[in-house]
């Protein structure tokens, strides 16, 4: 992650345990659902799950489009 960012590519880290992401030094962080299913939820029906995934990904896109100067969690 850091190596990709070091190469000048914008990275958004989508992850459940945001404290680890903060500790290891991600700059753009989007919280996910749960460790076994960060971008989904098996309790939802298929359509609702796709919508949920899209909501998280929308946040990820806006995180990438937002200038940041320090580690930022996009809630």
């Amino acid at each position: 992650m850091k190596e990709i960012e070091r190469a000048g590519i914008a990275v958004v880290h989508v992850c459940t345990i945001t404290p680890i992401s903060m500790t290891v030094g991600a700059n753009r962080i989007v919280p996910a659902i749960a460790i076994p299913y960060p971008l989904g939820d098996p309790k939802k029906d298929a359509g609702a799950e796709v919508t949920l995934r899209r909501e998280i990904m929308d946040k990820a896109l806006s995180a990438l489009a937002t200038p940041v100067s320090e580690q930022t969690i996009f809630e």
Partner: protein
Amino acid sequence: MKLEVGYINITDIQFGNECKVAGGTLHVNQDCLKELILSDARIAEVSFDIARPGESVRITPVKDVIEPRTKVGTDEMGIFPGILNKVKTVGMGRTHVLKGAAVVTCGQIVGFQEGIIDMSGPGADYTPFSATNNLVVLFTPKADIQPHDYEQALRMAGLKVAAFLGDLGKEVTPDVVETYETLPILEQKAKYPDLPRIGYVQMLQTQGLLHDTYVYGVDMKESLTTMINPTEVMDGAIISGNCVSACDKNTTYHHQNNPVIADMFEENGKSLIFAGMIITNENVFLMDKERSSDWTAKLCKMMGFDGVVITQEGFGNPDTDLMMNCKKVEDVGVPTVIVTDEYAGRDGTSQSLADVDAAANAVVTGGNANEVITLPKMDKVIGTLQYVDVIAGGFENNTQPDGSIVVELQAIIGATNELGFNKMSAR
């Protein structure tokens, strides 16, 4: 709460016609055990083997290790309450232990995280179960069984066998009897006014299939952080349903013989008061981690502990639970020591923990799980070597031409235990 534990020393296990304990030998009739296990329709076949200390034997893939214990002189209380026996508070009265014997469950792999026990050679130094006489139970599940079901069937079968064998010690006179007691809070201070009141926080792995722990039958991931009497743990109140990497999973045996509990009781009334025990979980949701660690800190404060030892189970995201517990407990003014292990890479030069916090200034480590070891060929394999490349800590083509296998310590049962069961450390 007061528990009397009678330890019956077992120096050998033998197959025979009878099931009994005599002269330090545990005699086992395989047919009795077979009947017990095959009553569960999910298990197609079962067989048994014995592995003794010093033998040229490798057991793999190992799921759980369980010590045979039984409650004595009571019809009410039973070992493994809420799971095998009815829910009834244990940790009181008398318990008999077949010390030196263990039930090892083994068989077709469920996930990635089963492990290896070597009874001799260099690998034996890293697992406590090279020193026990092991009755190995080898399972074959019914075809097309779901992993969750298979795991549950094996877990129950292992507990049944251990309880059955434990019962053989009911009438046997123990070699050693010890008494363990935790006094009510006010009496603690009255009895030992000058000693610090020390608590123990045990973190239990609760991350889903192959990563769960049960307390009185409750899946701990569904529970808030709570309190338990240390002697209840000795009676099997906490059991392992998990296979986090073999090296740092707490087997049921580890719970039954929790070394922090043992060492705190050892010091109780001398250098400290063992004032109480908190159990908490390691869940996959961030909100759960925040809530559970909030509760840990709150309970430490409510109990008025002067200090706590916090032990972890597993690694990776549970490092966050560990750091949250440590920081929040320190923040309410209770000093901590944490017990963890490390994943510092095969050469030891990488970051050891996934999460760190400056509050964790007193750390005990069970060592680097990534360190590589060569396990020489053994004369006999109980189970199968079929999975030694895919279990956690194994890797592709890790079997050498001479039959030895190369693994990370991660693959060895109990190698970097985070209850502090072993002497290994790292610097």
